[in-house]
């Protein structure tokens, strides 16, 4: 059944080419149908691959070029449960987005659907690949499609700026990856991840290996929107069409972090040896910083899509924390967070899309109270937000609890309170939006929130959109995200996936020696509810609700003097934070250079 492996990439690509070739001759619904069919097929095949990979890791050699005496001649797709799971997540989100955008992007003929299909192929290819340069190629493919999709609304200035910022920063990130690849090739003579790892293992890292690794992970961290590489994300999300934002926040950003984890555990794991703790500390620092900056900036936004974008940055930081721990449970926690967050954030973005379509605005203050007629959307939005607060046993709970437990076990006691605090702030912002828009709570003015250019409509001609076609994918995504933790056997399967992901020797055996190692998970037990995690989850849930209420009603609840004092204390810092996010590309690139130099320097220090 190895024949399924190339299909998640081949099917969307062939469909995209077919649409381009025949677009002028086909009927109007053809592009919607073909794109949806291709995406749904990719989703089904990826899910089948997940089940297959759960039994044994698959190594598929393109062109039939198997490894010869431990030397990889061709390009391999190495499918383990995590890789297939990622492809499945991307395909699921794409299918939901395509249903949502049914008939919506007609005005550009086939262009929108072609780009979406190519984007899907890029994501699946990146997730499944076992060759470093091949990963770079799919990374660039994702990028090319994404930059164009971000700039969709060319008649306004914002999308152009967002697309340019996105394109320039991510391209520079890709160049960093490429230099890293060149350096790795110069040292190991290989592009295959398993072979690179084999050659580097056990040797003391010298300048070349350290800097090459730093460059590769910095490039992927640009995609993963980690501070200080994160500036592009909010700009891109604020302006891209909603179905595209679903994929950005739900899968693309997480793929950057997946890239970091994949490169570490296949190519670099044998290198640090005793110094792995230093690497953990560095990545933990970056993750924590992103989580905090994302959370705070999230709270200060008025443009709902930009708010959700900063929330994604915050969750990306949490996912990086899970990876940084370098433990099985930490990794399993990150995987679970990726899945739940992707589904919930996708659903939240679709809700915003419905609001934009019906009410022609995404500005929280402009929308004040106008959403009361959209009760279904409001309910789904609120449920989605609460799911992000990780209330046991729903939503992000499984991921959060695995992560916190693992951190506590290894002495990082500060992770649980930090993650909870960040969750409180970012979810409170989303609940605040829900309260203001759908329930009409709070004042119509709020000095805390920054003025942003509003978005009036996504497409030129807005056909009367079917509510069913918009609500059904939204509801499915949100309910799936909420209920994911309740799937029997999910926790042991995630832990098995994490174990397989971390096992470098078995990876090398499968890829270079063709050995098939079976190891399945039979258990179907439900997720565990450790007391500490449940306690933290209650804190985050009620903290978020409380903070949202405070934000909405602070004019009534908090006396004038206290408000003025906090404003004086925190105002300066918030102003600086805001001004750093200037929107100017030169600033972003300066920060990117700083980030690469800093990460490289710190890695050099901790790994020597």
């Amino acid at each position, binding site marked *: 059944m190895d024949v399924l492996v*190339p299909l998640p990439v081949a099917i969307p690509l*062939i469909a995209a*080419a*077919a649409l*381009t070739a025949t677009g002028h001759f086909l009927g109007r619904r053809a592009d919607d149908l073909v794109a949806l069919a291709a995406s749904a097929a990719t989703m089904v095949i990826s899910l089948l691959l997940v089940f297959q990979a759960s039994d044994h890791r698959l190594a598929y050699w*393109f062109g039939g070029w198997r490894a010869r005496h431990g030397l990889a001649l061709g390009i391999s797709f190495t499918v383990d449960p995590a890789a297939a799971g990622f492809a499945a997540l991307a395909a699921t989100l794409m299918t939901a987005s395509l249903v949502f955008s049914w008939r919506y992007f007609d005005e550009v003929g086939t262009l929108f659907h072609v780009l979406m299909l190519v984007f899907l192929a890029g994501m699946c290819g990146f997730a499944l690949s076992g060759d470093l340069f091949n990963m770079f190629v799919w990374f660039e493919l994702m990028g090319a*499609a994404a*930059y164009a999709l971000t700039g969709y609304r060319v008649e306004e200035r914002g999308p152009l700026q967002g697309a340019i910022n996105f394109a320039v920063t991510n391209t520079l990130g890709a160049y960093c990856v490429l230099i890293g690849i060149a350096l790795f090739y110069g040292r190991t003579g290989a592009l295959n991840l398993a072979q690179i790892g084999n050659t580097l293992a056990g040797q003391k890292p010298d300048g070349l290996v350290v*800097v*090459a690794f730093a460059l590769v992970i910095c490039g992927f961290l640009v995609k993963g929107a980690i501070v200080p590489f994160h500036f592009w994300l909010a700009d891109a999300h604020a302006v891209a069409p909603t179905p595209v934002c679903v994929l950005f926040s739900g899968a693309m950003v997480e793929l950057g972090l997946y890239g970091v984890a994949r490169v570490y555990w296949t190519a670099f794991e044998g290198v640090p040896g005793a110094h792995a703790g230093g690497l953990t500390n560095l990545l933990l620092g970056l993750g924590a910083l992103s989580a905090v900056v994302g959370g705070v900036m999230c709270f200060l936004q008025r443009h709902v899509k930009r708010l959700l974008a900063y929330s994604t940055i915050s969750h990306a930081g949490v996912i990086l924390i899970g990876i940084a721990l370098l433990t099985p449970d930490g990794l399993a926690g990150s995987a679970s967070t990726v899945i739940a967050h992707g589904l919930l954030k996708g659903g939240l973005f679709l809700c915003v899309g419905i609001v934009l379509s019906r009410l022609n605005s995404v500005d929280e203050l402009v929308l004040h109270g106008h959403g009361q007629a959209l009760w279904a959307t409001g309910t789904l939005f609120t449920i989605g937000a609460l799911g992000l607060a990780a209330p046991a046993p729903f939503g992000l709970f499984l991921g959060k609890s695995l992560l916190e437990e693992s951190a506590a076990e290894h002495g990082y006691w500060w992770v649980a309170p930090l993650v909870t605090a960040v969750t409180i702030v970012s979810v409170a912002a989303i609940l605040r939006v829900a309260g203001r828009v759908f329930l009409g709570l709070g004042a119509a003015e709020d000095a805390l929130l920054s003025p942003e250019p509003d978005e009036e409509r996504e497409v030129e001609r807005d056909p009367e959109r079917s509510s069913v076609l918009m609500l059904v994918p939204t509801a499915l995504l949100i309910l799936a995200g909420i209920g994911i933790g309740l799937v029997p056997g999910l926790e042991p399967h995630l832990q098995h996936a994490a174990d397989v992901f971390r096992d470098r020797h078995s990876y090398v055996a499968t890829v270079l020696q063709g050995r098939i190692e079976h190891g399945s998970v039979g258990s179907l037990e439900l997720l565990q509810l450790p007391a500490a995690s449940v306690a933290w989850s209650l804190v985050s849930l009620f903290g978020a609700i409380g903070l949202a209420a405070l934000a909405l009603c602070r004019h009534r609840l908090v006396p004038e003097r206290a408000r003025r004092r906090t404003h004086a204390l925190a105002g300066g810092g918030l102003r600086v934070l805001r001004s750093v996010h200037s929107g100017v590309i030169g600033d972003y690139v300066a920060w990117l250079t700083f980030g690469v130099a800093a990460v490289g320097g710190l890695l050099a220090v901790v790994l020597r």
Partner: protein
Amino acid sequence: MTRQLRIGLFALSAAGLTALLLWSVAGLPAFGHYHERYGTLLKKVAVSERHTTNVVTATVFDYRGFDTLGEEFILFAAVVGVALLLREVREEGGHARRRDRLVSDPVGLVGIGFCAALLLIGLYVVAHGAITPGGGFQGGVVLAGAFALIYLAGDYRSFRALTPQPAVDFAEGLGAGGYAVIGVVSMVLGSAYLHNFGPFGTAGTLASGGSVPMLNLATAVEVTAAFVLLFTEFLQELPARSGES
């Protein structure tokens, strides 16, 4: 951030980055002394296994052919993206009519001559990709250059007349999809995706390399169509000239 602050931050970071990069390249093998197994093995076996004398083409279209699929689609996505970004938006009103430039007859004649030469050269480069330096990408760009020459030496109308949108879109889709479908054909024949099939012929002749010439051709079609589309999109942005006789 003010400009000075930005430049200051960059200067500091660039100094650190330069130091790190110089430290890392010091670990590379000295220039000219590269002896690694991957390239060495390919040089040894490509001619005998695949009967292609151009080892780079064998690498691009056979050993690492899957990368080339992605690369082709990157170009494809970029061109579709440019078409999306430069599209006419309704509120801008009608398409301003492009005034044709007047070129003298000698320029036109020479242009047509060169155009013919470019087409031939392009086709030659594509066809001999497996034998001598060249291939789908290189030949495709030369072929697209022939179309650009039609605009340069002739006029915009001739250029558009020779490159009707449905035909170019079809060619692009055919080229890109063709590559991917050839890979599927390999699967249908029972081997892995993009496994080289077909008679390998004799090395050094036009009929060699198995499916490599086919992939070459598909790539050339796609690259030509992609660049023609790019030219079309960008040329449409030229403002109409006024006041020409």
